[in-house]
């Protein structure tokens, strides 16, 4: 399986995402924001970072990039797309996901290992998790507070489209402790915390067993690979 990672001006975690994809067992394909070409990939990751310096709104300018025409078309045809942090912000700005992200309630940039409950294990990116699995992956953002209208929130909750919820405290003021959501089809997932930073022992969050041994993030990437194998 070939998974594309799009690099935008100001992307930071594109290399980490590519490494996570390789560790999960797929080929990572570097894609460029200015191209109109997905190079035949089977799935896409929009990585974290600060595209265009968060000018206008976080993710807003990147969501208008040339490659986003192809990303939106592919997503609407069912291609799995994962947006992490700034990538999540881009997906909301591109209207592929509901809601929006605003500055953290505290006004502070937050960087910490964060507990999450995976509440939807039917999406393309979370199918490998047990129901209501509790995981820990890094969170690092300044504008991670998830907002949506009461109506949208009701739909997200009612349709089981909350992929992940913060546990052990809401870090940023997100409505209903929302850390990640999916679309109706379950192929597009946006997540504020960073699974790609918890994929290799020695470099992940601390666990009860050993320092830096947490690899809970890997399952997002193995999930999409397994889904693709089942589909073929």
């Amino acid at each position, binding site marked *: 399986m070939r998974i594309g990672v799009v690099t935008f001006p100001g992307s930071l975690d594109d290399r980490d995402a590519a490494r996570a994809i390789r560790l999960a067992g797929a080929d990572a394909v570097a894609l460029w924001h200015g191209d109109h070409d997905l190079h035949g990939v089977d799935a896409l990751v929009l990585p974290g970072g600060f595209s265009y310096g968060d000018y*206008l*709104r976080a993710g*807003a300018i990147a969501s*208008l990039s040339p490659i986003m025409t192809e990303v939106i078309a592919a997503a609407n045809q069912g291609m799995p797309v994962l947006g992490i942090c700034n990538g999540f912000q881009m997906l*909301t*700005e591109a209207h592929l996901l*509901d*809601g*929006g*992200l*605003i*500055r*953290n*309630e*505290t*006004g502070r940039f937050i960087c910490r290992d964060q507990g999450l409950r995976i509440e939807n294990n039917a999406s393309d990116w979370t199918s490998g998790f047990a129901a209501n699995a509790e995981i820990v992956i890094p969170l690092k953002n300044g504008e991670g*507070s998830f*907002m*949506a*209208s009461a109506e*949208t929130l009701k739909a997200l909750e009612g349709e089981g489209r909350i992929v992940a919820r913060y546990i052990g405290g809401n870090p940023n*003021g997100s409505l209903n402790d929302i850390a990640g959501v999916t679309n109706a089809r379950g192929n597009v997932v946006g997540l504020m915390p960073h699974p790609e930073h918890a994929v290799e022992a020695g470099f992940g969050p601390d666990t009860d067993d050993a320092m830096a041994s947490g690899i809970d993030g890997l399952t997002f990437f193995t999930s999409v690979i397994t889904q693709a194998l089942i589909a073929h």
Partner: protein
Amino acid sequence: MPTIVVEVMPKAELLDPQGKAVAGALGRLGQTQSALAKVTGVRVGKRFEIAIDGEADAATLTAVRELADTVLSNSVIEDVVGIHVQSAPSSAVV
């Protein structure tokens, strides 16, 4: 050169952490400057000045209105609170 001004504010019902931080600082100043003691809140928004070539006619304003709703603001978290035309880019208040 005609300039179309678009003003965008965070939705009133959402917390504006930026405004809150500024209001906090003004509150501290208010302890020493009594005129500022009246300040009860601050909200921070955005102002876009779009320079155009030629007249700001109805078609141009319609196009800018569309731009304001779709690109310059995100209706999930912000409202467009004003669009108006002025004859030149803004300069400092004298």
